[in-house]
């Protein structure tokens, strides 16, 4: 810890930093208002797949960067799970060295263009910003700036391929190509390893591809990052389920010396209420996979999807917001959220909730489904819901929803998307009886090295945390890469 503070201090006192800091008085910086993100018109975008946020212009980014007062004690950094040097990258933007800003981001975050778009900044870096905690003013728009620098680098065509150490011919396997796997693969390649990523689906990217919709995270942004990993020598094998297509032992025989498991929390949960298996009721994973991964809404593609007219989405997380906004885009006249707590407890990013409201999504907060009804063809046509009120906080710290007796009523629906959480993917644990898992099925790992109970197997991301976030998954992937590097080096020394 001492070391980090010393390091930050030294960085901050570099000449260019001091100069730019002094170029505008702190008071003047604090007098500026937060830049708004340019957005597509809500009533146009809710009929198309265009990205909602169009990104800051260079002028806007510089103006926003000027708001940052370059604190001696940058509290924002404590909110970032991977410890990005936030003031440094922001000051690089202020000096208009946008590529330099991107390089700072990439020191700690392999996917800044993704994180700038999907991180819950209002709960992380921006929640700890000086403006938020000391002045009660809107935080510096760290997320917008992160996205700006990363997009600038990508659009410049000067995306630097990270340097890799001399190729050491040691084969390592990464299982799953979500953010955890991609981050691990990138760092392992930097260390010089021969890295192969195995992915069960036909596309690379995990939730970034099959879950998060185009209007929030264009596939192109993810593809560029994957391309960059390819240039670093990382190999990708799709349609390969480790534990099914081949076992860990098979892979060991092929020469793989250690494994990183980033297999995610892919299993959708249902509520187990009557009628939940009627047609027209989907998990959010199915609904989003059909639309995002399989392109079902495009008539040129073979996969069908039901584009409902009266759509209810159960839940209050990012997945629920993505589903309900997708339904609107597929033409629903009524697209509504049914959530058992109030808006304050919603786990979704605040920006997504705001965007959803602008797009005409209805919110039935403090409501909970009880039962579904169907027509003679087995297609859902009504649901019974119940009003809720909030009681004392529960284990998660959120106030517990309590049903209000006698408040049940029935609404018409023709499509329901159940988005009440996911469970860890059991494929890997099921194929490794010796692997230690929790009662919830998450893999038990050492917090520092991400090593599991099987010495040559490391894990991170949602398979370790349950449903979490992109940035936490990435952070885990990087920690695990360091842990694996150490493990291999020690093994070599011991021999």
């Amino acid at each position, binding site marked *: 810890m001492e070391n980090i503070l010393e390091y930050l201090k030294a960085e901050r006192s570099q000449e260019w930093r001091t100069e730019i800091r002094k170029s505008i008085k702190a008071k003047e910086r604090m007098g500026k208002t937060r830049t708004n993100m340019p957005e597509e018109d809500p009533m146009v975008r809710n009929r198309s797949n265009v990205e909602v946020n169009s990104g800051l212009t260079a002028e806007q980014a510089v103006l926003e960067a000027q708001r940052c007062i370059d604190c001696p004690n940058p509290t924002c950094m404590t909110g970032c799970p991977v410890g990005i040097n936030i003031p440094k990258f922001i000051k690089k933007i202020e000096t208009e060295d946008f590529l330099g800003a991107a390089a700072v981001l990439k020191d700690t975050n392999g996917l800044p263009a993704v994180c700038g778009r999907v991180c819950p900044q209002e709960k992380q870096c921006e929640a700890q910003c000086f403006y938020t905690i000391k002045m009660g003013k809107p935080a510096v728009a760290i997320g917008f700036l992160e996205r700006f620098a990363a997009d600038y680098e990508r659009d410049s065509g000067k995306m630097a391929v990270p340097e890799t150490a001399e190729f050491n011919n040691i084969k390592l396997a990464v299982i799953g190509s979500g953010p955890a796997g991609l981050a691990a693969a990138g760092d392992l390649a930097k260390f010089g390893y021969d890295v192969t990523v195995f992915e069960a689906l*036909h596309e690379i990217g995990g939730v970034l591809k099959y879950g998060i919709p185009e209007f929030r995270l264009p596939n192109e942004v993810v593809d560029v990052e994957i391309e960059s990993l390819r240039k670093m020598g990382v190999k990708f094998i799709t349609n390969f389920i480790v534990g099914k*297509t*081949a076992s860990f032992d098979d892979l060991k025989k092929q020469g793989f010396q250690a494994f990183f498991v980033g297999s995610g929390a892919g299993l959708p949960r*249902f509520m187990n209420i009557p009628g939940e*298996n*009627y047609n027209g009721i989907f998990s959010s*994973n199915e609904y989003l*996979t059909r639309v995002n991964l399989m392109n079902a809404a495009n008539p040129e593609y073979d996969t*069908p999807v039901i584009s409902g007219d009266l759509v209810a989405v159960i839940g209050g997380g990012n997945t629920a917001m993505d589903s309900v906004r997708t339904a609107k885009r597929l033409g629903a006249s009524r697209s509504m959220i049914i959530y058992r707590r109030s808006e304050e407890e919603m786990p979704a990013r605040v920006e997504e909730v705001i965007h959803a409201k602008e797009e005409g999504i209805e919110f039935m907060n403090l409501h909970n489904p009880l039962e579904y009804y169907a027509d003679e*063809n087995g297609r859902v046509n009504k649901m019974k819901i119940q009003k809720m009120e909030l009681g004392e906080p529960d284990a998660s710290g959120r106030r517990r929803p309590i049903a209000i007796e006698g408040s049940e009523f029935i609404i018409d629906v023709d499509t329901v998307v159940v988005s009440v959480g996911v469970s860890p993917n059991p494929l890997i644990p099921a194929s490794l009886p010796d692997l230690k898992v929790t009662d919830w099925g998450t893999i038990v790992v050492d917090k520092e090295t991400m090593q599991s109970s099987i010495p040559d197997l490391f894990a991170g991301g949602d398979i370790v945390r349950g449903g979490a976030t992109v940035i936490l998954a990435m952070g885990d992937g990087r920690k695990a890469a360091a842990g694996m590097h150490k493990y291999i080096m020690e093994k070599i020394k011991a021999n």
Partner: protein
Amino acid sequence: MSKIIEKEFFSENVAKIVLDAPEIALSRKPGHFVIIKIDKKGERIPLTIASSNPDKGTVTLVVQKVGVTSAKLLALEVGDEIEDVVGPLGMATHIEKVGTVLCAGGGVGVAPLLPIVEGFKKAGNRVITVLAARNKDLVILEEQMREFSDEVIVMTDDGSSGKKGLVTAGMEEVIQREKVDLSVVIGPAIMMKFAALTTKKYNIKTYASLNTIMVDGTGMCGACRVTVGGKTKFVCVDGPEFDAHQVDFEQMMSRLGAYKDQEVAAYQKYLETEEIAG
């Protein structure tokens, strides 16, 4: 990418397709299936692996033309490539020596039944197989079944081959004649439903292999869910075989029809474009 090594039509709408898929061929056991996606714009569909050859690195699928994807698949030629093939998926059939096993296959359910018949025979069981089809031309794999069965009974709706009648009639004939320890039924949902009712009458433990709609095949989406013994199960990871007496076949049939309108429209469109192209 998987190359088509061999293709042979069993009847107008049913063909055997042998694919180059070395890893799957090595890992696969009876009861397993694959998910395929023909090309970039294709959909993902499950197909049971009828047999495999680990030495040659091939797996054999038997495909019946029922919609756009199966029609496209049957239109491919030897040497063509299928973009995505993933597997082996699902739980393998639990094969052991139990005594006498009554296997019943209807329609294209005969293909996935073949490895199971073979497995039970090789495990030392007496295996009696009932094959059902609408007419003589639609009876497939009869010869291969004979190779691994102590007896094969063919049932056709019109009596054009074997005996006239439904699969259940053939099953009853065996059950009334001798002691059956286990039954395995694979076919259209309606056939499995009635086959299960038949064995239930005689208290014979029965497995049905379910062919629900699937997307990923890895337990990620829940498209394949069915109710078994009052509980929701995912066919792709918990199955595809379940206790047939516990399966809610009515619900399964209804779920199979979820996309009927889209499927019919898509097939119509496909046939029209084929006509123009052809």
